[in-house]
Structure formats: C-alpha cells, structure tokens
C-alpha cells in the first residue's frame, strides 16, 4: 500500500484546514479508501473552544514530566491536522483481511517505543492532580476550571463539587432564574451557554436540575453524559420513585437533608474520577475487560460459576439474577447472566464505582450486602448485591514495576483483589448467596484459577505488534467492552519523589488526547458518531512559525537536552464491529505506518478475543 506524500497532512492552522478538505478527495485513491464527501468534517479542533490557546501563554508549572519539561509558552497555535473522515468501502475490509500475522515480528520488537508522550495541553493545575477535597484552601468557585452543581427545580442547592456554601446559594439562585427565564420567555429548555472558553451545560431531570461548567474544552455532549451519570448515581442511591415522592409532597423540599454524607462523598469521588482519571468507560459506553493470560481461564471460571452458583444450588430459579467477578480499576473478569439479559453498562459503571471507589479499602474478611437501585434495570426498585472481596491468600502482591510504583495504582490496597458480586432482587437472600459464593470461591481458589486471574497483569504495549503506537483503546462493539494496554509504571520511576503527580499528570494527558480524538469523530449536535465507519487522523503539534520564535541560537547548547518538539498523531477508526483509538509516539506522522499498526492491533485483538473479552459469559 503506497501513500501519496501529499496525503499526509502537515500541521496547519485550523481555519485553513477546512478549506483544504476538498483536495482530499483527489488524493485518496492511494489509500483505497473513499472519502465520503457528504460527511464533511465538523471534527477540526476549534481552538477557540479548546483549552490550550489562551492558557498556553503561561509557562508550564513544571508538572510535566521531567524529560518533557518543555515550556510551552511560545506556542501560539496548536494545529490540528486536516481531519479526514473516511467511509469504508469493500476494499477496506479486504485489505484488513489480507493483513496476516506474517508481520515481521522482529521489526516491531526492535522498534523504538518512546516511554513518554509530550503534553501539548495546558499545564494541569494542582487541583486536578490531587484528590478532590484537598484543595479546599481556596473555595472561591471561580477558581475552578470545572464544576458540577445540582439544584432542585425550586432553586434549592443540592450539591456542588467545589465552592463555598454561601457563594453557591447565590449562584444557584442565579442559575435558577436563567433557566426559568428561558422556560417562560422562549418555552425552551436551556441546554448550554458558551462564553469564551467556558461551557455551561444544563440537564433537567425535574425535580432536579444538574449543571456542569467546564473551561477544559469538553463538548456539550460529553458534559451531558457526565451529568447523566451523576444523576444515575443519585437514582442508584435513593431510586427515582423516592425522589419523586419526596418532591411530590413539597416542591421546595431540601434534598440535602435526605442525602447522607456517603452520598456526597460518592459524588465527589465520581466527579473526581470522570474529571481526572483515564475513564473512557463513560463516553465509550462500555466496560473495561481484564485481559487474561489464556482464554481457558475465563472459560473455566464461567464453568465454575454455572456449576457452583446455579447447578449445585437449590434456590428457586431467578433468586440469583447476576453474578460478576470484577477486578480493581473497574474491570470485568467474568459474568453470569440469564439468557437474553445483560445488565446495562451504566448500571455496571455505577456498581463498579461503588465497589472500587467506595469499598476499595475494605478488608477482605467481611462480606457486604448492599441495596442498590440500577437506573436502567429498574429506576424505581432496589436490587441487593452480595459483595465479597477475594483474597488470594498465598498470593504475593503482584509485581507491577517496583513496589512503590504499583502503589500508585493501589494506594489503599496493595493486593489486586477481585470481588465477587451476586445480585438478587430479594432482600433476605444474603445467607443463601453467601453459601453459593463460598463454594464458588473455594473451587476458584483450589483450582488455581484465582491465582491465574490475579497474577497476570494485563498486556503491555510491547505485546502487540503495533510499531510506533504509544497507547490504544480497542472497543469491541459486540461485547460492549474495551481493552487498553497497561501503563508501564517503570517510566515514572525516575520521577521518584513526585511520581504520584507524574502518574496523575500522565493519566490526565492521555485522557485529554483520547477525549479530543473521540470528539473529533462525534457529531456535536446529536452526540453519536458522524458515520458508521470512520477513519480519522488527528495531529497535535506546534505550528512551525511559532516554534521558531524563541531565540534558538541562544538555546542551541541545551537544545539536545530538550525533548523533540511535540508532534503527536492519533487515529480514530470506527467500523461496524469495533472502535480503535490510538496515540502514536511523538514524531510518528506517517499515516501509512500508523494505519498498518492500527490494522495489526485490530487483528491482534480479534485473534485474542477470548482472552481479552468476556465473549459470552456464563449464560443460564
């Protein structure tokens, strides 16, 4: 496959990018992909709306990695490449099929894998790198680049992630007035207000109004998804029926009196996670699956689930609705489910958040019995979850990098304990479920499966024959699951005293790359992807003219110490069966090379499907 040089986009300023688009049609033949002229890219990054423009004038706060300690205050424009939205024709798949596993393995093994990608974004402020509540020393609401606020339809404050109470009351009053103004004068629901770099997004779930405010370049769709998730949390805790009942009696009910401390803590945790962590689960609408070493491990686990949780049980059918084995960092290991039924991903996201954010420092000699409302399953009723944290007693804590590096991931808990969750609709089923759970856990432990699950640490980028790719997310649409390589914690070791910060800022950087990549293929107004099949390259780089501004000769001596200037290419590839998002190593801009790697990844994922995904689960 040959590429026409001219196809490769050069960093250019955004405005011109749109003008250049028509040319693409002429050049596409070499790719044997046809560009759908109908799907014109609304995907170029509009710098006015993104975070980097004005903010980049400030020097970076030395939060970037030491080896990328670049001061980006000379950047005027971050150019995005011409986003090319391509639809697939048949050749595309033929091509894919023709990529066999005969890749020269040595070539990718030898290929240089850069450990670090530069940060082209605004230097992350401390507020994002530390846990949510620690920055209370300055409570002025205007200091935060992002905030979530809930109020009742009558204007009573319910919750805000940041901000002082007194200030909130007046702000919420103002918000309420604005919303009502629109309702009365335009009989329209106010959805979003954009103002300079700020985006205010409203979600009306009467009697509750949710508001997100972001200066971080997030799209309206993204923020609505986040608000919807936060609202789902409220339902999971108190159920929709209860909310309606509370407000039925009194419009001006103060929901704060009904919510418990744990609700506010959980909301803080979720806000922190969706704002600061690498958590694509939400916008991908899927779950991350734990990669196992062999597919047989998952198969046998499912067999044990069927045997111990169903066959050997004399409980009436349907007492146990779902069984899940889940893993820290919100990963799915195996699923027991009734034929024809799956739990909605939102419900699972909530459950996993609860388990791994809320209970992650629980010790494993207790079992929990937790009522939880699954909004998509039944927003009005509660299910009961039996939760047991499995300890592999003869298991050493897994060796991810050095022990100190692994602490980043499991700061509360240096063991990678999966949790068994059994879900029932009956509130007094704890003891019968406990009996089933114990027999399952016993066999899981004795058969050595538990050890195999806990000792394998997922796959690394270097396990995948994809040269020059720094990181990727592969989502299998059929399974509604995604996988992503484990981050090599060793690369933070040399930032020793600060690696916690380093890791957090790496995570945030990765998150931002992916978010922009993802948004580049999303239809801003409908929220869905622009097309069923999309191939879109995206480039982040410093435009040449602005890069030359600083007096280079002065810096000449040091320049070799500096990192190469950021020039990052990403690829979003959507097909009817999968979605692949990848971030290349810095400086890799050859689309031919990148697409080849992308195809290798897709092939690899398909070939390893059974160990990467829960393909069927234990179905009864």
């Amino acid at each position, binding site marked *: 496959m040959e590429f026409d040089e001219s196809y490769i986009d050069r960093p250019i300023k955004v405005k011109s990018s749109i003008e250049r688009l028509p040319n693409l049609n002429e050049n596409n033949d070499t790719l044997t992909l046809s560009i759908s002229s109908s799907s014109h890219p609304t995907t170029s990054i509009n710098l006015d709306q993104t975070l980097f423009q004005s903010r980049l004038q400030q020097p970076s706060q030395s939060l970037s990695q030491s080896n990328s300690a670049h001061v980006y205050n000379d950047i005027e424009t971050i150019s995005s490449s011409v986003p090319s939205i391509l639809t697939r024709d048949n050749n595309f798949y033929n091509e894919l099929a023709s990529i066999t596993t005969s890749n020269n393995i040595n070539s990718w093994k030898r290929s240089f894998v850069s450990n670090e990608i530069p940060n082209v974004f605004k230097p992350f402020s401390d507020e994002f790198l530390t846990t949510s509540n620690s920055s209370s020393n300055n409570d002025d609401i205007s200091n935060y680049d992002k905030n979530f606020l809930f109020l009742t339809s009558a204007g009573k404050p319910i919750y805000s992630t940041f901000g002082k109470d007194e200030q909130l009351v007046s702000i919420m009053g103002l918000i309420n007035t604005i919303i009502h103004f629109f309702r009365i004068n335009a009989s329209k629901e106010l959805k979003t207000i954009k103002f300079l770099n700020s985006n205010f997004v409203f979600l009306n779930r009467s009697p509750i109004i949710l508001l997100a405010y972001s200066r971080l370049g997030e799209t309206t769709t993204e923020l609505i998804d986040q608000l919807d998730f936060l609202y789902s949390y409220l339902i999971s805790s108190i159920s929709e029926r209860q909310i309606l009942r509370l407000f039925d009696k009194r419009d001006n009910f103060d929901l704060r009196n*009904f919510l418990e401390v744990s609700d506010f*803590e959980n909301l803080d945790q979720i806000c922190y996670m969706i704002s600061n962590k690498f958590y694509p689960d939400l916008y991908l609408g899927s779950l991350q699956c734990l990669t196992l070493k062999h597919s047989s491990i998952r198969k046998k686990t499912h067999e044990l689930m069927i045997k111990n949780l169903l066959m050997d049980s004399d409980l009436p059918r349907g*007492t146990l609705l779902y069984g899940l084995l889940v893993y820290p960092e919100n990963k799915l290991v195996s699923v027991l489910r009734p034929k024809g039924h799956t739990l909605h991903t939102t419900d699972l996201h909530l459950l996993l958040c609860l388990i791994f954010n809320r209970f992650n420092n629980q010790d494993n*000699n*207790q079992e*929990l*019995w937790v009522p939880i409302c699954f909004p998509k399953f039944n927003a009005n009723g509660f299910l009961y979850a039996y939760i047991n944290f499995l300890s592999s007693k003869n298991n050493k804590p897994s060796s991810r990098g050095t022990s100190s590096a692994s602490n980043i991931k499991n700061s509360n808990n240096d063991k990678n304990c999966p949790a068994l969750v059994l879900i029932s609709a009956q509130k007094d*089923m704890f003891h019968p479920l406990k009996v089933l759970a114990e027999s399952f856990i016993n066999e899981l432990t004795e058969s050595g499966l538990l050890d195999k699950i806990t000792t394998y640490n997922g796959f690394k980028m270097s396990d995948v024959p994809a040269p020059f790719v720094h990181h990727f997310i592969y989502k299998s649409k059929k399974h509604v699951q995604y996988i992503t390589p484990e981050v090599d914690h060793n690369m933070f070791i040399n930032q020793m005293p600060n690696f916690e910060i380093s890791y957090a800022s790496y995570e945030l950087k990765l998150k931002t790359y992916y978010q922009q990549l993802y948004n580049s293929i999303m239809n801003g107004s409908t929220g869905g992807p622009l097309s069923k099949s999309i191939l879109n390259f995206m480039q982040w780089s410093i435009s040449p003219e602005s890069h030359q501004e600083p007096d280079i000769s002065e810096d000449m001596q040091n320049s070799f110490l500096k990192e190469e200037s950021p020039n990052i290419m990403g690829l979003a590839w959507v097909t009817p069966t999968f979605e692949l998002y990848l971030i290349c190593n810095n400086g890799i801009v050859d689309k031919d090379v990148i697409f080849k790697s992308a195809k290798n990844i897709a092939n690899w994922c398909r070939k390893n499907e059974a160990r990467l995904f829960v393909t069927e689960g234990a179905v009864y």
Partner: protein
Amino acid sequence: MLQFKLVLLGDSSVGKSSIVHRFVKDSFDEFRESTIGAAFLSQSIKLDEDDTVIKFEIWDTAGQERYKSLAPMYYRNANAALVVYDITASDSLSKAQSWVEELKNKVADDKLVICLVGNKLDLCQEDSGKRSVEISDAKQYADEQGLLFFEVSAKTGEKVNDVFKSIGESLYSYKKEELLSKSEQNGTNTHGQVDLQLQKPATSDPTSCCT
C-alpha cells in the same frame, strides 16, 4: 464450638464499624467511611469457663436513616445486639434507647442479650469537657432495662474485647440452662451431641432465611 448471631445498631458515625474492626482485626481506621447497607463478619473468642469457644457472626449495620427499614432483617434472628452510642453526642443515646425499645418489641426471643455501649471513651479521657453523656445516666438506664453496659474506645481498644466476652458469657449461660433442662428431659444425651442440636440453625444453612 457455639455459634451466635450478633447485630450492631446505633446512629451513624457512633463507631459501630470501628468497634467491630477493633474486635475482628484489632485495628482502627481514623477515616472509616460510613457503612452502606451492611457488612457481615465473624470472629471467635474463647471463654475462661470450660474453655468454650464462641463464634460470633456479626452484622455491622448502617446507621444512616435511609437503611433503617432494613434493620429488622438483621436483628430478627439475632442472639445478641450491641447498641452503640457516642458518649460525646447526647442525641446518639436517645437513638440507642429507641433501638433498645424496638428490639424489645420486635424480637420474640426473650433470651436476646442486649449490650449498651458508649463509644469514644478516648476523647473524654483527653478532654473531659467533651463528654455529653454521663456514665451514671447510661448505666442507670441499662440497669433498668436489664442490659449489659460498657464504655469503650474503638480507637485505643479499651474494653472492646470485654464487651464481646461478657456477651459471650451471657449467651453461654443461657445455653447451659437450656442444655440442662433439655438433658433432664432426654436423660442420656451427652453434651457434645446436644450442643449441635440445640444450636439455632447456623447462618450458613441455606434454609434458615428463605422460608
């Protein structure tokens, strides 16, 4: 070995989970999070008397108002209840008293052992001004109601084991009475066999809860 079911009740943040964790793991967590739903744990102790081993199956319930309606599920089959209040918060005692009342009304078993526990003793030892429930008041109430009574600190561990030991002894003495009257009726049974038969269905028995 004798097995008994014990439930902890009391207002949110009085220290129920902290007491259980001091008892089960001999540890204390300054930042323990409020319990959601309920947690099930177990721990065994050995009584001085006859070297009897007693295994407690413990329900640590959530004190939050929202979960109140679930409480009967946990105390219904209990042999013992530990009703906890915070000696630095007087309203937590009235909450404890209402739990005692509810237990007396709703639990049919007149052999239910109830222990009133005032927690966070360490705070008052540091600064006696922090105390807002007098020990004499609580003790008097406990005596009137026929409850065991302790002031403890989950933080330092002071008296925590005594609580469980004394509950264990009460339960064991009830059990012995029962055994005696039974063996008088049946004549020949040896102790060991009777022990097993007389036990309430263990919680691990799948039939105990679904009927």
